[in-house]
């Protein structure tokens, strides 16, 4: 098992290097620091001096890959690539345009992001499985048919609509919960409720439908027929056998998104004013703060790869045959 995990971990390194090179190419080669400066300063006030000053302020006044003027190892370390891209492997993200340390921001903003994303994930999973099981229980009846149609309808509604409708009806019209905001501790619960509710409802359509297909695939298998043949009731078959086996693909599929929960949701956080990583990212995109966007790209890929490794481990845990391949 340990050797298997180690192998997966080693496999992740070239992928992270690839991500790093790709972001480097996107942010510094295709789009040179001069272009960035011009965009930031506005078209009208561009002078070569202003661009030079902007580059010095942001530390972009160095050669891209190789510093011919420097001596020894500084030839490689005193470059944009080393200081801005390679440094991310050590989780040193530098400063954003507002002068704050990006690493610090990430640390303080992970909590609020998680406070929304984790409940949405856990409650959503339970609600979706419940709906899927209900549809499977009533399969090939009108209840199931209309359940699927309802799922398709829910899927076809824009995620923005759920948020706007939730804010308008629940918060503004009926005054049940605050429209937006965030607070720590127990006091923050009332701020969290609405975004979590909206997040769960928005996910029901696609989630329940997807799990229903998984359960239906499971219900056609031989062991289910055996279970029925020995006289088990439908409810018992469903909960003892189908649910248990259906959970394997569902949970291993869910593992991959677990680390990404730290990143939060862009749209939800920005609508509800949650000071998490999602709203941080969206602010950075809108302010065209390339340093922050770059850091978030790296962090996101890092977490995604962590999710992939976790998935592999959980697969080999539930199905030992995988390890031998």
């Amino acid at each position, binding site marked *: 098992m340990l050797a298997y995990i180690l192998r997966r971990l080693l496999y992740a390194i070239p992928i992270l290097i690839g991500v790093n090179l*790709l972001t480097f190419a996107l942010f510094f080669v295709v789009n040179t620091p001069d272009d960035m400066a011009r*965009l930031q300063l506005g078209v009208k006030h561009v002078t070569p001096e202003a661009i030079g000053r902007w580059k010095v302020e942001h530390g972009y006044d160095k050669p891209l890959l190789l510093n011919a003027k420097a001596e020894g190892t500084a030839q490689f370390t005193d470059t944009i690539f080393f200081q801005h891209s390679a440094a991310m492997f050590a989780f040193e993200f530098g400063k954003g345009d507002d002068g704050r340390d990006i690493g610090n921001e990430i640390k303080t903003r992970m909590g609020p992001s998680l406070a929304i994303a984790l409940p949405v994930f856990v409650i959503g999973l339970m609600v979706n499985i419940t709906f899927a099981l209900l549809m499977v229980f009533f399969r090939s009846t009108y209840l199931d048919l209309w359940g699927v149609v309802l799922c398709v309808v829910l899927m076809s509604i824009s995620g*923005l*609509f759920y948020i706007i409708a939730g804010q308008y009806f629940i918060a503004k019209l009926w005054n049940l919960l605050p429209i937006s905001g965030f607070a720590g501790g127990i006091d923050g619960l009332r701020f969290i409720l609405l975004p979590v509710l909206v997040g769960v409802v928005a996910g029901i359509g696609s989630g329940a439908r997807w799990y229903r297909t998984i359960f239906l695939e499971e219900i056609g298998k031989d062991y289910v027929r055996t279970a029925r043949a020995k006289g088990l009731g439908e409810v018992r078959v469903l909960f003892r056998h189908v649910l248990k086996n259906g959970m394997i693909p569902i949970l291993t599929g869910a593992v991959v998104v677990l680390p990404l929960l730290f990143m939060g949701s862009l749209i939800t956080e920005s609508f509800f004013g949650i000071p998490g990583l999602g709203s941080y990212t969206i602010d950075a995109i809108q302010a065209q703060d390339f340093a922050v966007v770059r850091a978030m790209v790296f962090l996101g890929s890092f977490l995604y790869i962590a999710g992939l490794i976790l998935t592999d481990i959980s697969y080999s845990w539930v199905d030992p045959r995988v390890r031998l391949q």
Partner: protein
Amino acid sequence: MNFLPVILWTDALIFALLAAVAALVWFIRSQEHLLAPWRVVAQRPMAMGAALVLGVFVVIGLLDSLHYRERLADSPVDAPQYSVEVLSVFDALVSDLRTRKEKTYSAPLAMQLYAKEFIERDGATVRDHPRLQYGGAHLQRADARLPDITWRTLAGAAQGALTSVLLLGLLAAWQARRTRVSMGAWLAAWWRSALNWPARTVVFGVTLLLMLAGMIAQLASGYHVLGTDKVGQDVLYISLKSIRTGLVIGTLTTLVTLPLAIGFGIAAGYFRGWVDDVIQYIYTVLNSIPGVLLIAAAVLIVQVTIESHPELFDTAAARADIRLLALCLIMGVTSWTGLARLLRGESLKLRTLDYVEAARAFGVSHSRIISRHIFPNVFHLVLIAIVLDFSGLVLAEAVLSYVGVGVDPSMYSWGNMINGARLELAREPVVWWQLGAAFIFMFTLVLAANLFADGVRDAFDPRLGGRR
């Protein structure tokens, strides 16, 4: 000439796509085994109803893709100068909607402006909602509005229903002649759903659409059916114009995705070895970057490029168009990985089958094996992916526009409508119609696409085997 035809990049690609689809349809019609699953799709009432709605959207989108620039009225005929405003055939058809602008917000079917102003009335200056310039301008008194609206709605519905009955009569006459039965017998069979296609659903669908169109047309000649936006533009017009943007994003993105996904996916599965390793590496790297962020980064870069080369674009429409095309390209490049992985898995299975081994033993070349034996057997996966991705892409446009990396702000799109209107919900009374219109149009298109996609998937996916 009174107008100068303008072919934007996306127009050219849309019509190229249309030609490709037409060629494909013509090819499929000649192959019985390819036609069979489509027959199954055509027998599903839900899929056919959805296809009808999609058809309406597509027609509007295509009309909106024939662009031109009008000749300026005061320029000489022999040396014409053209307006910088790029219009489309659709604009010409609904020119009333486009040109009837009010001052600012007005509610759907209103005859008064949303905002209060100082107006002269009976010699005194009072603060009240002024009358609209166009909406309900034909009415003398405010209490004549409701009867007028009711009358117009009924008249429009009646017109639509009548047209539909006429069309049904023509259809019955034609079909009866073709199948050599009496018209009454055909109609009876139609009513009992005894035909080999869901004729009743289609006819009822057409009737509903015609009635809706009749009502909207009747009302739109006297009112702003969905109200007006901040600058007084008719919201119905904006919503209709946004259809093209949604369709372009949903289809052209797929056009970018397909060659990448098919090429890489099949190559990885068929050749295995180092080719497989390299391709898997590429798509894991691309996949591991959060999609929105990659799109945002790329769009920011495109924006920089467009800003630094203003001389390349002669009109604002051309610039917005390039940005739309770039968005499609970027979304395509970031979204091919899912389909590629699917095709890789399928090709891995197919290459070990006996007939492929036999072909290899006979010395058939790789390219021929792929094109004759592998590709036709994964084509259903490609088709299912196309229709399933479409709705997701339309929804993604709204989110991207909200983030600020979507289509050009000057372009009509549902995302821009939502983005512009969401802050207006804080007003009292609420300005809801712009948001509502955008969401309803988007919902209709996406729902129709999803239902159609379901029908296509059920018919093509052999694994499902008739199970929904």
